[in-house]
């Protein structure tokens, strides 16, 4: 059996081998373009330092975005949705059982009603 058979998805196909080749070519192109860049860029000089409108730059640890705060804006934007969905997860065992019962009623409605 040929290990490189593509997947037939019904309307197209997917072959990771081709993808990898394309990816490598793209990498090469990027490398080439990168080589065309400016040569006077120097590390560890004033060039790389951030400039915050003249404010004092805090040390690295405070600049670090904590994992718990990622996408703060996103959650803020969808506050209504998140309030609702968070209140669904009550952490109460009885509610878990209740959801199960409710879903069972829904299944009853579907199966008995439609079929």
């Amino acid at each position, binding site marked *: 059996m040929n290990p490189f058979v593509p997947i037939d998805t019904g309307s197209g196909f997917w072959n990771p081998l081709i993808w990898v080749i394309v990816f490598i070519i793209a990498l090469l192109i990027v490398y080439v373009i990168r080589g065309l860049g400016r040569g006077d860029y120097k590390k560890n000089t004033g060039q790389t330092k951030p400039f915050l409108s003249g404010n004092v730059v805090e040390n690295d640890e405070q600049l670090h975005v904590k994992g*718990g705060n990622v996408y703060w804006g996103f959650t803020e934007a969808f506050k209504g949705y998140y309030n609702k969905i968070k209140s669904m997860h009550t*952490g109460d065992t009885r509610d878990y059982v209740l959801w199960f019962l409710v879903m069972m009623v829904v299944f009853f409605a579907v199966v008995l009603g439609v079929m």
Partner: protein
Amino acid sequence: MNSIITHSPALLIAIPLFAAFITPLLSRIHRRARDGFVLIVLAATELLALLLAQDIYANGIRKYVFGATLPSLTHPGTMSIPVRIIFEIDGLSIFMVLISLTIAFVATVYSSSFFKKEDGLDRYYTLLLLVTVGMVGMELTGDLFNFFVFLEITSIASCALIAFWVDRGESLEAAFKYIVISSIGALFVLMAIGFLYGQYDALNIAALANSIQFTFIDKVALVLLLAALTMKAGIAPMHMWLPDAYGEAPPSVTIAVVAATQASLYGVLRVCFTLYGKGLRLNMAAVGWTLVGLGLLTIFIGVTMALVQRSLTRTIAFAAVGEIGYMVIGAGTALAAGAQNFATVALKGGVFHIFNDVLDIGLLFLVAGAIIYATKERDLNNLGGLAKRMKYTTVFFLIGLLAVAGMPPLNGFASKILIYESTYQLNPIISIIAILSSILLLAIFVKIFYSLFLGPELPHLRDVKEVPKGMLVAMAILATLIIIFGLFPGYVLQTIVDPAVAALSNPTNYINAILGGA
């Protein structure tokens, strides 16, 4: 050799069970001996499963009758239905068995160096073996009541393992929630078995599938089975036990529980496609649409909830919830599509995604475990800059997150694209939501990756060391599998997924293997 293959279905259960009974005795002798023994047993079982798989792919459905005069004597001459318990193994069963055994092996490798000083490890290994037995039994059996028994074994053993850290109140809480909900679910499964038995006086799945007539009672039994098994599989809005259990268990346990969840999903597939699948596929379309809807809900809730978690393990757990949604969508699309040709594609995607999900989520949990092991910390806000100290772990996490978010060329993409394509033909909106959720998941994990591993070192994490070799080996096994599955998806599909899908879409073969004579 031949007789080993003949009896391999029984041995697949008996050997780990024997080992589980012997482990408490062995652990009094020596710790290392016990670890090695468990590893060897699981490796041997895996080998046996591979042999059996080869045999099945070559010769078709395999059956094993317990206690009969011949392993293949399904029912005595005067009877039209089987009396004894029968193991019936088709492509899907052996596919799931391979998943379960792989995961159990990885979990054992991992835990042999994850746990050092904890007491109660002899029981831990016993229970790990028992979880394996439970999963494998659920997947091999062709008898409905037997399925229930193994379901209970799996849930009891998982519950005890989730509570392994008894000094953490959260672990106990999660275990209690898990056992309450799973025992209630299992009781409803038993009730459904009672209904079916009362009607047809049979317990064998094939015999029941042959005589099922879609009366009112059959529908009630279907509802009970479906509700209980989807709940065990963690489908929204019944998923809430899942993040608790996944998040609070020791990571090596968590991946076993992930596999157990997939075993429940196997139950859903078996019920929908085989037990109620004979010639009446049109009637199942409603169920299919329901499953698709629930799957979408699951994906959406899982991904969006993963965004707001503060704990690393819980984040991954919610991502796991989302991943379950994809498989359900695949199965549901296949049911809803009926005889249309994209049903097979959807089913392929769903079934393939089961394996991929176990690998991806398992790898992520193992990495989370490594972080917990090294830093004793699971709050995202207290972690950062680990890349310099834990190089291998960083790489594995990167592989895991790319795979779970469905980035090419890793395995998650291969199965997800099948699901997207087929659902697009059912209804484009479904597929669009699924793709968007996947992208959101990628965004979340990239950000988490950045804040955990990159960035400056935090002061309390200065003396973090790389984790021991055993854990790295376990992670490496999963990562290798992910890459192989990602690079050669067509090959994997042809060898192991296609037989499983064929088994699902032809229930008549399953029935005839039992009822078509000795």
